[in-house]
């Protein structure tokens, strides 16, 4: 007996809905619904470890440029995205900054930093 999980593959316009059967040890025992082998690999990764790059803005102390766009320099767990936003909301970026500068180290213990993607001032 095992549980099932579904993943939509984003590799190509097929958008295959891939069903994974997970056995009692938490291992993937069966994969169905994929049309190619890349889809299989993607589905397992996505199911076990769904990672997302977080992109957002932070507030600045520059009245001419109220926002600075930022990103995580590595993808983080999907479940951390919503939790991360109030943390970003507290940031007040001060000029001078350039793209790549770190605004938050090790966001929520993910090992990923939040970095500027543009300079301040522009």
């Amino acid at each position, binding site marked *: 007996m095992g549980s099932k999980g579904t993943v*939509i*593959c*984003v590799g*190509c*316009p*097929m*958008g295959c809905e891939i069903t994974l059967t997970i056995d009692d040890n938490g291992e993937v025992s069966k994969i169905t619904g994929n*049309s*190619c082998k890349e889809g299989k690999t993607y589905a397992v990764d996505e199911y076990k470890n769904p990672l*997302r*790059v*977080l*992109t*957002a*803005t932070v*507030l600045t102390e520059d009245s001419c440029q*109220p*926002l600075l*766009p*930022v*990103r995580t320099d590595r993808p983080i767990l*999907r479940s951390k*995205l*919503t939790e991360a*936003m109030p943390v970003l909301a507290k940031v007040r970026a001060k000029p001078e900054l350039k*793209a790549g500068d770190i605004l938050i180290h090790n966001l929520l213990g993910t090992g990923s930093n939040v970095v500027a*993607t*543009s*300079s301040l001032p*522009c």
Partner: protein
Amino acid sequence: MHQEVDVAVIGAGPAGLAAAIKAKQAGAERVLIFERAENLGGLLDQCIHNGFGLLYFGEDLTGPEYRDRFIQKAMDLKVEAELQSMVLDLQADHTMKVASSRKGYLTLRPKAIVLAMGCRERTRYAINIHGSRPSGIYTAGQAQRFVNIHGLLPGKRIVILGSGDIGMIMARRLTLEGASVEAVVEVLPYVGGLIRNEVQCVHDFDIPLFLKHTVSQVHGFPRIEAVTIAEADEGCNPVPGTERRIECDTLLLSVGLIPENELSLKAGVELDPIVGGPIVDEARQTSVPGIFAGGNVVHVHDLVDNVTWESEIAGAGAAAFASGAKPPGRKIEMKPGRNIRYVVPHTISGDSDVTLYMRVKEPERNVRIRVGDVVTSKVKLAVKPSSMEKMEIAAGELGKLKDGASEIVVECLTKEAK
């Protein structure tokens, strides 16, 4: 009159920047970009999400990061740019009139011109949404500018009509900013944009997705209070009896992009009525000699990487024209065949490598896209109208064409059709 400009580029978005850089690299001496907005980069400024440059740089960049690579390159090459400068008129003889805050009212006649004006968003009026006309209704791109540049949120209970990429991106963006996206409503039976966005912008956040539905009415004044959505029939009209009311304080529209060709028309450039942009040859020259075009102004792209590649072609073409090079002699017409909505470029010379860009009319699976009887073909697991297809054809393959061939049919064939 300005000191002679070799190549003038209209628009400093990704298309304009790429064209200008390439024009310089191809030897044009004076390359000048006119941009009516307040900075370089066009819409890349507000596209703070990632997914840019996967093909062109092999890296996953955000819009601003992608933009800055090209701005740096343009500066290194001494491309000139005038901001807050809008080209008001363009004639077939290249006479250009520009209103510029810094430089005043300019009249010039550049040797060559690249049209890179991009596109605009379809409005509620274009899709016949009736009811009230309150505040709180925006196109998705317009809202994106408020959210990502001005630091303003339109509301906290959002309905999004249209599941194109920009609509889905905004669904995620607003959810992350603390708003509640009540629904994404799509008239087709499938999502309009990339599957990646469907997963990462809609399903990731459990946003209700209503396929085969449309917004039939807007309620509330002076601020929107709700929309009525309903199932959509074959003609995209609301099916009576299927209505459902969704309370909201904002409606975003992501219902189509229209290439912005007002200047093109003034210059007498011939437009493709299906695509809405100029008819171009493989150098991206329009029907008016010396006027080239690239990017969304020609046809709406999905990936900025392709905008860049296409605009580089236009920039190189413009530089060649400015230096007096002769245009290619032969013009072989690319004809859209079975399940192909359009092909760009519209004509090729048959003498050089060429990349064809195209879109299908209907989604299909297990197809073969065939270019001409003898040229080349490609097998695809799945094609859909919202995913642009590319076919790269080597000059050698074109050599297989009969001498004097004046057209090549590009078609999308299913297994049965073989």
